[in-house]
């Protein structure tokens, strides 16, 4: 098996396990951020599954799902989960959620109505290396320029700022107050994991697509570790005088 098969398959399996864990926690605690993160992980895993599938065969629907989930929606939904976690004003979080839902619908319609150059597909190459048409560089890819590609960055900037910025902000607050070291470390990991696919996607956008699959696997592993660290119950050192 090639790396184009192994890396996205591993990302898909880890995303699925992570999503199940989040949905189970949501069933216990009924916190909105857990549900939205869980949906974000399902979207993330759908994108990586599409990469795995496309290393075996062509499917226009799978390709469209790859672009919609992986390149447009995954970061935004994960970031929206962080918005629910951090924003105390529920009305603002709900308004952003409504915007995201409308944006998701528009992007889905747009992606599924975009004409594709199917004849250019090769299962031997990662999708990230063959999807983009760049007329300025004389490159013809599976997807034309413009359309959803002209605004997918909006979703990614929103999602990355919310997910990574939120984790950095939380980590800094806990660090400054010198409390909850597990949450400090957990947030450092979440920020690092969030940056990884953002960087991979940015590199793919500017013409270095070969790192995308690796950055996605690294990202989901590190975010998962961060989540486990941040939610791990931590023993409290009770002063001896209080124990007496």
């Amino acid at each position, binding site marked *: 098996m090639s790396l184009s098969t192994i890396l996205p398959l591993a990302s898909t399996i880890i995303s699925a396990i992570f999503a199940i864990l989040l949905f189970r926690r949501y069933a216990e605690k009924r916190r909105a951020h857990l549900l939205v993160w869980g949906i974000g992980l399902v979207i993330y895993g759908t994108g990586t599954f599409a990469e795995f599938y496309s290393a075996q065969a062509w499917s226009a629907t799978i390709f469209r799902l790859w672009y919609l989930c992986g390149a447009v929606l995954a970061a935004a939904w994960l970031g929206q989960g962080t918005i629910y976690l951090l924003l105390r004003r529920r009305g603002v979080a709900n308004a952003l959620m409504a915007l995201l839902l409308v944006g998701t619908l528009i992007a889905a319609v747009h992606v599924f109505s975009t004409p594709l150059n199917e004849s250019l597909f090769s299962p031997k190459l990662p999708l990230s290396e063959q999807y*983009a048409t*760049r007329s*300025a560089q004389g490159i013809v890819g599976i997807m034309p*320029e413009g359309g959803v*590609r*002209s605004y997918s*960055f909006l979703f*990614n*900037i929103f999602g*990355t*700022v919310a997910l*990574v*910025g939120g984790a*950095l902000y939380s*980590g*800094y607050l806990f*660090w400054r107050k*010198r*409390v*909850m*070291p*597990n949450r*400090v*470390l957990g947030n*450092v990991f979440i*920020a*690092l994991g969030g*940056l990884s696919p*953002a*960087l991979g996607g*940015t590199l793919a*956008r*500017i*013409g270095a697509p070969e790192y995308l699959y690796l950055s996605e696997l690294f990202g989901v592993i590190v975010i998962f570790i961060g989540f486990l660290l941040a939610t791990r119950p*931590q*023993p*409290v*050192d*009770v002063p001896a005088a*209080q124990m007496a």
Partner: protein
Amino acid sequence: MSDAPGPKPRKQTPRVPSNVLYERIVPIALAVMAIALVIVIVIAVIGLVGAIE
């Protein structure tokens, strides 16, 4: 009455023991990632403007 339950102990927030490594590395890591975040966003915005794509 001597075995009556006492007041319930208050839940304590875990505090970080003094640790030079933790105090130095965490802020550096946070700052480096904040800079990386800004760089990623700037590149994405440049891509939007069309300077790259």
